[in-house]
């Protein structure tokens, strides 16, 4: 039994160590691709490139890696303070605060998600593996009738609030706001007859929305962020091309297709439908 416990502990340590190495590599990749220059530049250089960069952000980005590394040392290697688990907590809190703040400032979803996701196993590993006293208190904590019954509920809500659109966390925004206008996409043939999307295409309206967002982002990025929106005729042509290139196998009996944006608005307590031609595509 004792042998089994030690064995499992070793495996857990190895897994956690490997995880942290992978995490650091991924972070390094992300950081050096995006804000790598923060590590090789002075604050004055940074402010020349990014005029609104506060010196606190600069310091935070520089501190980010050492703090992460220190947390890892204390949590995994655990060679300096074997009996003083409290040394670990201020660092962990500081690191988590830094992660959240950096996310708020820069929106590094992926980095922050991974930082927090890997911090959690570290804490769990720290609690379970390295301190007998903490093991005891942790189990009392989890087994307590009230705390145990609501602990994960609170943790999940906090993580979802911090990391929206980072599965398995989400803000569950469905129908959280009803806009004054809503729109869909409609495909018609040259004679104006509706072409049902699902009859010929592999996707639903959802994918057209996703493609619209991707196309606009790509257009703005392609113009070095000098434009704020994509002209409708370009968007329409792009979306028609996307529709045509994702047809189901089989015959497509239309010479050309027209893509419309159909919007619904409210006028005098009545819903009104507006159609706008976005683009035409010659299929044959």
């Amino acid at each position, binding site marked *: 039994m004792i042998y089994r416990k030690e064995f499992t502990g070793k495996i857990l340590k190895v897994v956690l160590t490997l995880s942290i190495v992978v995490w650091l590599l*991924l972070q390094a990749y*992300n950081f050096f691709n995006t804000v790598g220059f923060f590590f090789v530049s002075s604050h004055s250089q940074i402010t020349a490139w990014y005029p609104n960069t506060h010196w606190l952000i600069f310091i935070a980005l520089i501190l980010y890696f050492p703090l992460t590394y220190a947390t890892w040392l204390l949590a995994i290697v655990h060679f300096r303070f074997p009996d003083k688990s409290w040394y670990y907590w201020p660092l962990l809190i500081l690191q988590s605060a830094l992660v959240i703040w950096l996310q708020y400032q820069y929106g590094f*979803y*992926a980095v922050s*998600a991974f930082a927090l996701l890997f911090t959690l196993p570290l804490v769990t590993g720290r609690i*379970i593996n390295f301190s007998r006293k903490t093991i005891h208190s942790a*189990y009392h904590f*989890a*087994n307590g009738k009230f705390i*145990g*019954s*609501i*602990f*994960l*509920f609170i943790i*999940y*809500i906090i993580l*979802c*609030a911090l990391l929206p*659109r*980072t*599965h*398995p966390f*989400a*803000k*569950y*925004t*469905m*129908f*959280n*706001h*009803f*806009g004054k206008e*809503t729109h*869909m*996409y409609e*495909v018609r043939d040259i004679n104006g007859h*509706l072409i*049902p*999307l*699902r*009859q010929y295409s*592999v996707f*639903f*309206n*959802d*994918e057209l*929305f*996703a*493609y619209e*967002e*991707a196309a606009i982002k790509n257009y703005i990025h392609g113009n070095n962020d000098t434009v704020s929106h994509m002209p409708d005729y370009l968007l329409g042509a792009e979306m028609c091309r996307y529709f045509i290139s994702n047809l189901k196998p089989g015959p497509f009996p239309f010479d050309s297709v027209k893509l419309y944006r*159909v919007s*619904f*608005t*409210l006028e005098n*307590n*009545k*819903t009104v*439908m507006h159609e706008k031609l976005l683009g035409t595509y010659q299929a044959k």
Partner: protein
Amino acid sequence: MSKPITDTSANSGTAWFFIKLSLLIFWLGNMAVMLTQVSPAALLPVGFNKLVHLSFLFTTPGKVSIAILLFTLSMLYLLEKSMRYVLIGQFLLSVIIISQHESSGMFHHATVFSPLFAVQAIAYWQSHRNHEFNLAHFRTQYSIQIIAATYTLAGISKLTASGLDWVNSGNYFALQVIKNYSFIYFGEGDKQALSQGYAIAGSMFQHAHLIQLLLAGSLFLELFCFTALISHRVRVLYAIALVAMHTGILIVMGIPFGVIAPVMIIFFLNPLFFIATCAVKVRSFILKSI
């Protein structure tokens, strides 16, 4: 010959088996749908896919491998074998498939599967470390916490996006109804769906106060879903109220029960177990009568 159900308590092994069975059927069905829809291309990478590209997993051979893995893990889960590792596997598979699916621009709203398996894994790991840990209670209770959190998050999201005024947005809610029915019309060509949407929207304008009341009710239900954690009885009442809410959404908006509602029913009510225990009681009653 199958064993008779002797323990009919909510935390019994039999109850857990029926929860697992229901969840598995539903999970496998959803994963299969997502696997068939998803393509290797990720239009808008979200979450996990922002960091790691796993498009090779969504080619035909990749999908076949995932399907085999899904089936194997499901069998092990049902047979209660190597649960700590199986649950981690199920969690990872769910994360990968759902992330890729969401990155393709489709919103199947299946998020809840991944954290469910994660918290069950936590319960099994805790039980492995501490033999006094009440696994029978917490493996379902942890899952219930996640479901309650999901509903509460939906309520919080409504408050943060629209404030309390959300309950007064009944007229704009009608636009959403039209949108949902036009989704069917533009997708399937069913013109009747659009007419139905207009008819429902029209009746919503006529009964604005009723819609306001229903919206307020659903917001209240979602926000206070954590009360379902208090006891089994409260949970059953809450489940009935939530089923009524989802049925209302189905009738008014034409949106079928998604993922969260059936998962909630499985954990809050455990209908298969309820049917099985009823059958056992009816059988013993008949035998006694004879």
